[in-house]
């Protein structure tokens, strides 16, 4: 059985590894669901880290981001 199941996700991209890790730390501290993933090619093909979260976490994420970290974009994807 395949171990990977695609599901709807909201993905935040960043312009630096530092920002991605700042996001991870803030989300973990605040209990916002999600995890670090390689930036999907459909967002950008040139590497980097992104934050992938379930759609229901988006509101908490956006409130948390203000003043804590800067994401370059938010995308709705099937991953």
């Amino acid at each position, binding site marked *: 059985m395949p171990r990977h199941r695609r599901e709807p996700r909201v993905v935040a991209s960043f312009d630096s590894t530092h920002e991605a890790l700042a996001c991870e730390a803030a989300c973990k501290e605040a209990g916002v669901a999600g995890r670090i993933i390689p*930036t999907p090619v459909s967002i950008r093909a040139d590497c980097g880290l992104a934050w992938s979260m379930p759609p229901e976490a988006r509101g908490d994420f956006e409130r948390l981001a203000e003043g804590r970290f800067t994401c370059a974009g938010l995308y709705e994807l099937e991953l």
Partner: protein
Amino acid sequence: MIYLNCAATSHQRPECVIDAVADALRTFGSCGRGAHESELAAARSIALARERVSALLGFGHPERLVFAANATEALNMAILGTVPDGGRVVATDWDHNSILRPLYRLRDERGVTLSFAAADRRGVLDIDALVNAIVPGTGLVCLTHASNLTGNVLSREELVRVVKAAHGVGAPVLLDCAQTAGARPICMDELGIDLVAFTGHKALMGPQGTGGLAVASGVDVHPVLRGGTGVLSFEEGQPAGYPEHLEAGTLNGHGIAGLSAAAAWIAEKGLDTIHAHDLALVRRFVAGARRAGATVYGDFPVTEEGLLAPGFDHAPVVSVNLPGWDSSEVADALGHDYDIAVRAGGHCAPRMHRALGTQDTGAVRFSFGCFTTEEDVGAALAALAELAAEGEGDDDATS
């Protein structure tokens, strides 16, 4: 965890490397900054490291092997320190951003002209074009020994040909050995290569923060960094003698102690043995990845029976894509669902990706090292086959 990202760093290292760093942290003073036994211990360790690493590079002048923080720093030293304003440099599509970005800087800030030899869809360099581009006035020829994306490697014959052309117009040859130092013999002196840049933490299996540049006798590199060397303190300029000429500031003695231990470990195991081990893994992986339906990038000549041709050579790096999958998603699935570490994305190799036509998709890179086993490769292939089966009929995933 199965670590197949050895082209990024070795991750698994001989225990003697860890012990050497720990011992150095407990006992070393600062190399060249005093004559107490603790300072001398650091100095002796670094001198021994120069000899051991030089031997692995086939370089007979260890005093001209200068240490740096990594291959990128070494390449910057070599490029910025040899190319005159308004000069001309020949480079290739194989080159990593650690070569490309210093070159683009020279182009933009110092009027340097750049000429790049192209690679084809298999990543094979046009050596005729490369040689033809080496015309009078060329100030430096930059080569990458093995592509960090395809694993294609320059053959001995190709290197000899390019060196001959470069020396014919008085241009030094810089060889980026980030993916090959410690994984195969380099034969720097024998091939007449002028400058070899290496990193200490990949196939050489030393700590991160180590690397360096071997500078052939008779070749001078203008020092980019200026500062303390522990000798000739009242001179205003950087000392002319090597290695201090290019080593401003305190060296990473603790890291270099680990690199030295790693170099001794590699020498004992044998570069030819390591190369054969790596090649066997590449053969198995390429065959298995193709069976799984992956697109495999790189030059893999096959016999009529479909086997990789005898005499086939390659660095332990293979990049692939799976139909119906985003390359970053494959890397994430391998990491998250199978605990297999690989690397997706652009690999700091923009020209190589464009040559392969993967600039919009990226690729999933698998890279092997001394501690990679047949079982590791088998597990990666099994995972790839599962993902490939899942991706069948799911072409929307890459949209």
